[in-house]
Protein backbone atom coordinates (compact mmCIF):
# COMPACT_ATOMS: atom_id res chain seq x y z
CA UNK A 1 0.00 0.00 0.00
CA UNK A 2 1.33 3.44 -0.90
CA UNK A 3 1.98 5.96 1.79
CA UNK A 4 -0.04 8.99 0.79
CA UNK A 5 1.07 11.05 3.76
CA UNK A 6 1.65 14.76 3.32
CA UNK A 7 5.25 15.50 2.55
CA UNK A 8 6.96 18.36 0.83
CA UNK A 9 8.64 19.19 -2.46
CA UNK A 10 9.42 16.44 -4.94
CA UNK A 11 8.20 13.71 -2.62
CA UNK A 12 4.76 15.34 -2.32
CA UNK A 13 4.61 15.73 -6.09
CA UNK A 14 5.42 12.05 -6.46
CA UNK A 15 2.69 11.06 -3.97
CA UNK A 16 0.07 13.18 -5.68
CA UNK A 17 1.11 11.77 -9.06
CA UNK A 18 0.59 8.28 -7.70
CA UNK A 19 -2.84 9.24 -6.44
CA UNK A 20 -3.72 10.83 -9.79
CA UNK A 21 -2.52 7.74 -11.64
CA UNK A 22 -4.56 5.42 -9.42
CA UNK A 23 -7.66 7.57 -9.78
CA UNK A 24 -7.31 7.71 -13.56
CA UNK A 25 -7.21 3.93 -13.61
CA UNK A 26 -10.31 3.76 -11.39
CA UNK A 27 -8.20 1.66 -9.04
CA UNK A 28 -10.38 0.86 -6.03
CA UNK A 29 -7.36 -0.29 -3.99
CA UNK A 30 -5.88 3.21 -4.30
CA UNK A 31 -9.21 4.72 -3.42
CA UNK A 32 -9.54 2.51 -0.35
CA UNK A 33 -6.12 3.66 0.83
CA UNK A 34 -7.28 7.25 0.39
CA UNK A 35 -10.46 6.54 2.33
CA UNK A 36 -8.40 5.13 5.18
CA UNK A 37 -6.13 8.15 5.18
CA UNK A 38 -8.61 10.99 4.69
CA UNK A 39 -11.85 9.69 6.21
CA UNK A 40 -11.53 11.40 9.57
CA UNK A 41 -10.58 14.73 8.00
CA UNK A 42 -13.46 14.51 5.54
CA UNK A 43 -15.94 13.74 8.34
CA UNK A 44 -14.54 16.63 10.39
CA UNK A 45 -14.77 19.04 7.43
CA UNK A 46 -18.40 18.14 6.80
CA UNK A 47 -19.28 18.51 10.48
CA UNK A 48 -17.72 21.99 10.41
CA UNK A 49 -19.76 22.81 7.31
CA UNK A 50 -23.08 21.55 8.65
CA UNK A 51 -22.59 22.23 12.34
CA UNK A 52 -24.29 18.93 13.05
CA UNK A 53 -23.68 15.22 12.72
CA UNK A 54 -26.74 13.82 10.94
CA UNK A 55 -26.40 13.40 7.19
CA UNK A 56 -22.62 13.59 7.29
CA UNK A 57 -22.00 9.86 6.77
CA UNK A 58 -24.20 9.78 3.66
CA UNK A 59 -22.31 12.74 2.24
CA UNK A 60 -18.98 11.09 3.01
CA UNK A 61 -20.05 8.04 1.01
CA UNK A 62 -21.33 10.19 -1.83
CA UNK A 63 -18.07 12.14 -1.87
CA UNK A 64 -15.95 9.02 -2.34
CA UNK A 65 -18.23 7.76 -5.08
CA UNK A 66 -17.82 11.12 -6.80
CA UNK A 67 -14.05 10.82 -6.39
CA UNK A 68 -14.18 7.45 -8.17
CA UNK A 69 -16.40 8.86 -10.89
CA UNK A 70 -14.42 12.08 -11.47
CA UNK A 71 -10.98 10.74 -10.53
CA UNK A 72 -9.54 11.47 -13.97
CA UNK A 73 -9.99 15.21 -13.39
CA UNK A 74 -7.43 15.22 -10.55
CA UNK A 75 -4.12 16.06 -12.25
CA UNK A 76 -1.77 15.36 -9.34
CA UNK A 77 -0.04 18.75 -9.65
CA UNK A 78 -1.51 20.05 -6.40
CA UNK A 79 -2.39 18.53 -3.04
CA UNK A 80 -5.18 15.99 -2.93
CA UNK A 81 -7.13 17.34 0.02
CA UNK A 82 -8.23 20.67 -1.52
CA UNK A 83 -9.61 18.72 -4.47
CA UNK A 84 -11.36 16.28 -2.11
CA UNK A 85 -12.82 19.06 0.04
CA UNK A 86 -14.03 20.91 -3.03
CA UNK A 87 -16.00 17.84 -4.12
CA UNK A 88 -17.40 17.35 -0.61
CA UNK A 89 -18.34 21.02 -0.41
CA UNK A 90 -20.24 20.98 -3.70
CA UNK A 91 -22.18 17.91 -2.60
CA UNK A 92 -22.83 19.48 0.81
CA UNK A 93 -24.19 22.63 -0.84
CA UNK A 94 -26.51 20.56 -3.06
CA UNK A 95 -27.71 18.56 -0.06
CA UNK A 96 -28.07 21.73 2.01
CA UNK A 97 -30.15 23.42 -0.71
CA UNK A 98 -32.51 20.46 -0.83
CA UNK A 99 -32.95 20.57 2.93
CA UNK A 100 -32.53 24.36 3.14
CA UNK A 101 -30.05 23.86 5.96
CA UNK A 102 -26.76 25.08 4.57
CA UNK A 103 -25.93 28.39 2.96
CA UNK A 104 -22.35 28.90 1.85
CA UNK A 105 -23.07 31.38 -0.88
CA UNK A 106 -19.69 32.92 -1.67
CA UNK A 107 -21.37 36.01 -3.14
CA UNK A 108 -23.03 36.75 0.14
CA UNK A 109 -21.60 39.83 1.82
CA UNK A 110 -19.74 38.56 4.86
CA UNK A 111 -20.91 41.48 6.94
CA UNK A 112 -24.46 40.21 6.46
CA UNK A 113 -23.68 36.63 7.44
CA UNK A 114 -26.07 35.55 10.14
CA UNK A 115 -25.09 33.24 12.99
CA UNK A 116 -26.53 29.76 12.80
CA UNK A 117 -29.54 29.02 15.01
CA UNK A 118 -28.73 27.15 18.21
CA UNK A 119 -30.54 23.88 18.81
CA UNK A 120 -31.31 22.48 22.27
CA UNK A 121 -29.39 19.29 21.53
CA UNK A 122 -25.67 19.20 22.38
CA UNK A 123 -23.71 20.30 19.34
CA UNK A 124 -21.15 18.00 17.70
CA UNK A 125 -18.50 20.44 18.92
CA UNK A 126 -19.60 20.10 22.54
CA UNK A 127 -19.57 16.31 22.22
CA UNK A 128 -16.16 16.30 20.53
CA UNK A 129 -14.37 18.74 22.83
CA UNK A 130 -11.42 16.96 24.45
CA UNK A 131 -9.65 19.94 26.00
CA UNK A 132 -10.75 22.79 28.23
CA UNK A 133 -10.08 25.35 25.51
CA UNK A 134 -12.06 23.33 22.97
CA UNK A 135 -14.97 23.11 25.41
CA UNK A 136 -14.94 26.88 25.75
CA UNK A 137 -14.97 27.31 21.97
CA UNK A 138 -17.69 24.74 21.31
CA UNK A 139 -20.71 26.97 21.83
CA UNK A 140 -19.26 29.90 19.87
CA UNK A 141 -18.31 27.58 17.04
CA UNK A 142 -21.87 26.31 16.89
CA UNK A 143 -23.24 29.84 16.54
CA UNK A 144 -20.60 30.96 14.06
CA UNK A 145 -21.89 30.74 10.49
CA UNK A 146 -20.66 27.88 8.32
CA UNK A 147 -18.57 30.00 5.93
CA UNK A 148 -16.42 31.33 8.79
CA UNK A 149 -16.21 28.01 10.61
CA UNK A 150 -15.10 26.35 7.40
CA UNK A 151 -12.14 28.67 6.74
CA UNK A 152 -10.93 28.39 10.34
CA UNK A 153 -10.79 24.62 10.00
CA UNK A 154 -9.12 24.70 6.60
CA UNK A 155 -6.49 27.22 7.68
CA UNK A 156 -5.66 26.10 11.21
CA UNK A 157 -6.43 22.39 11.22
CA UNK A 158 -5.85 21.41 7.62
CA UNK A 159 -2.98 23.88 7.30
CA UNK A 160 -4.04 24.91 3.80
CA UNK A 161 -2.80 28.12 2.23
CA UNK A 162 -5.12 31.04 1.54
CA UNK A 163 -4.87 30.21 -2.18
CA UNK A 164 -5.87 26.60 -1.60
CA UNK A 165 -8.79 27.65 0.58
CA UNK A 166 -9.80 30.21 -2.02
CA UNK A 167 -9.94 27.43 -4.64
CA UNK A 168 -12.09 25.27 -2.35
CA UNK A 169 -14.62 27.90 -1.36
CA UNK A 170 -14.67 29.68 -4.72
CA UNK A 171 -14.05 33.09 -3.18
CA UNK A 172 -11.18 35.58 -3.61
CA UNK A 173 -8.18 35.27 -1.28
CA UNK A 174 -9.10 38.62 0.32
CA UNK A 175 -12.56 37.27 1.21
CA UNK A 176 -11.03 34.13 2.69
CA UNK A 177 -8.64 36.24 4.78
CA UNK A 178 -11.44 38.48 6.03
CA UNK A 179 -13.49 35.42 6.98
CA UNK A 180 -10.53 34.13 8.99
CA UNK A 181 -10.17 37.49 10.79
CA UNK A 182 -13.87 37.56 11.56
CA UNK A 183 -13.89 33.95 12.72
CA UNK A 184 -10.98 34.59 15.06
CA UNK A 185 -12.60 37.81 16.29
CA UNK A 186 -15.79 35.92 17.16
CA UNK A 187 -13.97 33.20 19.10
CA UNK A 188 -11.24 35.31 20.69
CA UNK A 189 -13.37 36.83 23.51
CA UNK A 190 -13.41 33.37 25.12
CA UNK A 191 -9.78 33.93 26.06
CA UNK A 192 -9.51 37.70 26.29
CA UNK A 193 -7.68 39.11 29.28
CA UNK A 194 -6.25 35.79 30.46
CA UNK A 195 -2.72 34.88 31.36
CA UNK A 196 -1.35 32.48 28.80
CA UNK A 197 1.76 30.73 27.63
CA UNK A 198 3.26 32.03 24.42
Amino acid at each position, binding site marked *: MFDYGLTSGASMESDTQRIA*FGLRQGDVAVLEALVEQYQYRLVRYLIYLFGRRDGVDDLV*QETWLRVLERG*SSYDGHSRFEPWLFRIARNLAIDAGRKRQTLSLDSDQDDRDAQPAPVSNQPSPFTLAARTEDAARLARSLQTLDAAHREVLLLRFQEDLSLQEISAIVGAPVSTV*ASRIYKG*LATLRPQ*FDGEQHEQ
Partner: protein
Amino acid sequence: MNSNNHESFQRIIDESLAGGIPAEMDQSLRHHLETCVACQEYLGASNRVIAGLGGFSFEVDPTLNARVFTALRAQQPQAAQPGRPRWVLATLAALALTMGGSFADLQFGGMIASVFDLQRTLVRQGVLAFWIAPSLLVLLLFPLLLLSSKAGTRRQERNL
Protein backbone atom coordinates in the same frame (compact mmCIF):
# COMPACT_ATOMS: atom_id res chain seq x y z
CA MET B 1 0.58 54.19 22.78
CA ASN B 2 -2.62 55.14 20.98
CA SER B 3 -5.42 52.73 20.10
CA ASN B 4 -4.92 53.23 16.36
CA ASN B 5 -1.43 51.85 16.72
CA HIS B 6 -2.78 48.78 18.55
CA GLU B 7 -5.40 48.27 15.89
CA SER B 8 -2.86 48.35 13.11
CA PHE B 9 -0.60 45.86 14.92
CA GLN B 10 -3.56 43.63 15.75
CA ARG B 11 -4.44 43.67 12.08
CA ILE B 12 -0.88 42.60 11.33
CA ILE B 13 -1.24 39.79 13.90
CA ASP B 14 -4.41 38.63 12.10
CA GLU B 15 -2.64 38.73 8.75
CA SER B 16 0.31 36.87 10.18
CA LEU B 17 -1.92 34.10 11.55
CA ALA B 18 -4.02 33.87 8.41
CA GLY B 19 -1.32 33.67 5.81
CA GLY B 20 2.03 35.02 6.86
CA ILE B 21 3.49 38.49 6.50
CA PRO B 22 6.69 39.84 4.92
CA ALA B 23 9.86 39.49 7.02
CA GLU B 24 10.16 43.23 7.51
CA MET B 25 6.65 43.50 8.89
CA ASP B 26 7.24 40.45 11.05
CA GLN B 27 10.33 42.09 12.52
CA SER B 28 8.39 45.25 13.28
CA LEU B 29 5.60 43.22 14.91
CA ARG B 30 8.05 41.32 17.12
CA HIS B 31 9.60 44.59 18.15
CA HIS B 32 6.20 46.01 19.08
CA LEU B 33 5.16 42.86 20.97
CA GLU B 34 8.16 43.11 23.27
CA THR B 35 6.68 46.17 24.92
CA CYS B 36 2.93 46.09 24.23
CA VAL B 37 0.92 44.06 26.75
CA ALA B 38 -2.41 44.63 24.94
CA CYS B 39 -1.08 43.20 21.68
CA GLN B 40 0.61 40.33 23.55
CA GLU B 41 -2.78 39.46 25.03
CA TYR B 42 -4.42 39.76 21.63
CA LEU B 43 -1.87 37.37 20.11
CA GLY B 44 -2.13 35.03 23.11
CA ALA B 45 -5.94 34.85 22.86
CA SER B 46 -5.71 34.23 19.11
CA ASN B 47 -3.22 31.43 19.66
CA ARG B 48 -5.49 29.91 22.31
CA VAL B 49 -8.35 29.90 19.77
CA ILE B 50 -6.16 28.17 17.20
CA ALA B 51 -4.91 25.64 19.75
CA GLY B 52 -8.50 25.13 20.96
CA LEU B 53 -9.59 24.22 17.43
CA GLY B 54 -7.19 21.30 17.66
CA GLY B 55 -8.87 20.05 20.81
CA PHE B 56 -11.85 18.42 19.10
CA SER B 57 -11.96 14.73 18.38
CA PHE B 58 -14.99 13.65 16.38
CA GLU B 59 -16.28 10.10 16.54
CA VAL B 60 -16.33 8.29 13.19
CA ASP B 61 -18.79 5.44 12.81
CA PRO B 62 -16.56 2.32 12.78
CA THR B 63 -18.71 0.77 10.03
CA LEU B 64 -18.43 3.82 7.74
CA ASN B 65 -15.26 2.73 5.95
CA ALA B 66 -16.67 -0.72 5.26
CA ARG B 67 -19.85 0.83 3.85
CA VAL B 68 -17.83 3.16 1.63
CA PHE B 69 -15.66 0.28 0.36
CA THR B 70 -18.76 -1.76 -0.52
CA ALA B 71 -20.27 1.18 -2.40
CA LEU B 72 -17.00 1.81 -4.27
CA ARG B 73 -16.63 -1.82 -5.33
CA ALA B 74 -20.23 -1.88 -6.54
CA GLN B 75 -19.62 1.28 -8.55
CA GLN B 76 -16.21 0.32 -9.98
CA PRO B 77 -17.19 -1.44 -13.26
CA GLN B 78 -19.15 1.61 -14.47
CA ALA B 79 -16.42 4.05 -13.51
CA ALA B 80 -13.32 2.15 -14.54
CA GLN B 81 -13.67 2.02 -18.32
CA PRO B 82 -15.69 5.02 -19.40
CA GLY B 83 -14.30 5.53 -22.91
CA ARG B 84 -13.79 2.04 -24.33
CA PRO B 85 -17.10 1.53 -26.22
CA ARG B 86 -16.59 4.85 -28.03
CA TRP B 87 -13.15 3.74 -29.23
CA VAL B 88 -14.55 0.49 -30.54
CA LEU B 89 -17.45 2.25 -32.27
CA ALA B 90 -15.17 4.83 -33.90
CA THR B 91 -12.80 2.12 -35.16
CA LEU B 92 -15.69 0.07 -36.53
CA ALA B 93 -17.15 3.14 -38.24
CA ALA B 94 -13.77 3.93 -39.83
CA LEU B 95 -13.43 0.32 -41.01
CA ALA B 96 -16.92 0.42 -42.53
CA LEU B 97 -16.14 3.71 -44.29
CA THR B 98 -12.86 2.36 -45.73
CA MET B 99 -14.54 -0.77 -47.03
CA GLY B 100 -17.51 1.25 -48.30
CA GLY B 101 -15.17 3.60 -50.22
CA SER B 102 -13.31 0.71 -51.82
CA PHE B 103 -16.58 -0.98 -52.72
CA ALA B 104 -18.04 2.25 -54.18
CA ASP B 105 -14.95 2.79 -56.28
CA LEU B 106 -15.01 -0.75 -57.66
CA GLN B 107 -18.76 -0.88 -58.31
CA PHE B 108 -19.63 2.67 -59.34
CA GLY B 109 -16.29 4.25 -60.32
CA GLY B 110 -16.73 3.46 -64.03
CA MET B 111 -20.34 4.62 -64.02
CA ILE B 112 -19.49 7.95 -62.32
CA ALA B 113 -16.63 8.54 -64.78
CA SER B 114 -18.94 8.08 -67.78
CA VAL B 115 -21.80 10.17 -66.31
CA PHE B 116 -19.49 13.12 -65.60
CA ASP B 117 -17.32 12.48 -68.59
CA LEU B 118 -14.15 12.02 -66.54
CA GLN B 119 -11.20 9.71 -66.78
CA ARG B 120 -11.58 6.54 -64.68
CA THR B 121 -8.26 7.13 -62.91
CA LEU B 122 -9.30 10.65 -61.94
CA VAL B 123 -12.43 9.31 -60.19
CA ARG B 124 -10.33 6.67 -58.48
CA GLN B 125 -7.85 9.28 -57.26
CA GLY B 126 -10.71 11.44 -55.95
CA VAL B 127 -12.32 8.58 -54.03
CA LEU B 128 -8.91 7.58 -52.67
CA ALA B 129 -7.97 11.10 -51.56
CA PHE B 130 -11.27 12.25 -50.11
CA TRP B 131 -12.84 9.04 -48.88
CA ILE B 132 -10.62 5.99 -48.49
CA ALA B 133 -7.44 7.71 -47.23
CA PRO B 134 -9.15 9.77 -44.46
CA SER B 135 -11.17 6.81 -43.19
CA LEU B 136 -8.09 4.59 -43.34
CA LEU B 137 -6.20 7.20 -41.35
CA VAL B 138 -8.90 7.23 -38.66
CA LEU B 139 -8.92 3.43 -38.69
CA LEU B 140 -5.18 3.32 -38.01
CA LEU B 141 -5.19 6.28 -35.61
CA PHE B 142 -7.29 4.66 -32.90
CA PRO B 143 -5.18 1.51 -32.49
CA LEU B 144 -2.05 3.71 -32.54
CA LEU B 145 -3.49 5.95 -29.80
CA LEU B 146 -4.41 2.86 -27.79
CA LEU B 147 -0.88 1.47 -28.16
CA SER B 148 0.77 4.77 -27.18
CA SER B 149 -1.56 5.13 -24.18
CA LYS B 150 -0.63 1.59 -23.04
CA ALA B 151 3.06 2.37 -23.48
CA GLY B 152 2.59 5.53 -21.39
CA THR B 153 0.81 3.54 -18.70
CA ARG B 154 3.66 1.00 -18.59
CA ARG B 155 6.22 3.82 -18.35
CA GLN B 156 4.26 5.39 -15.49
CA GLU B 157 3.99 2.00 -13.74
CA ARG B 158 7.75 1.56 -13.98
CA ASN B 159 8.23 4.99 -12.40
CA LEU B 160 6.05 4.15 -9.38
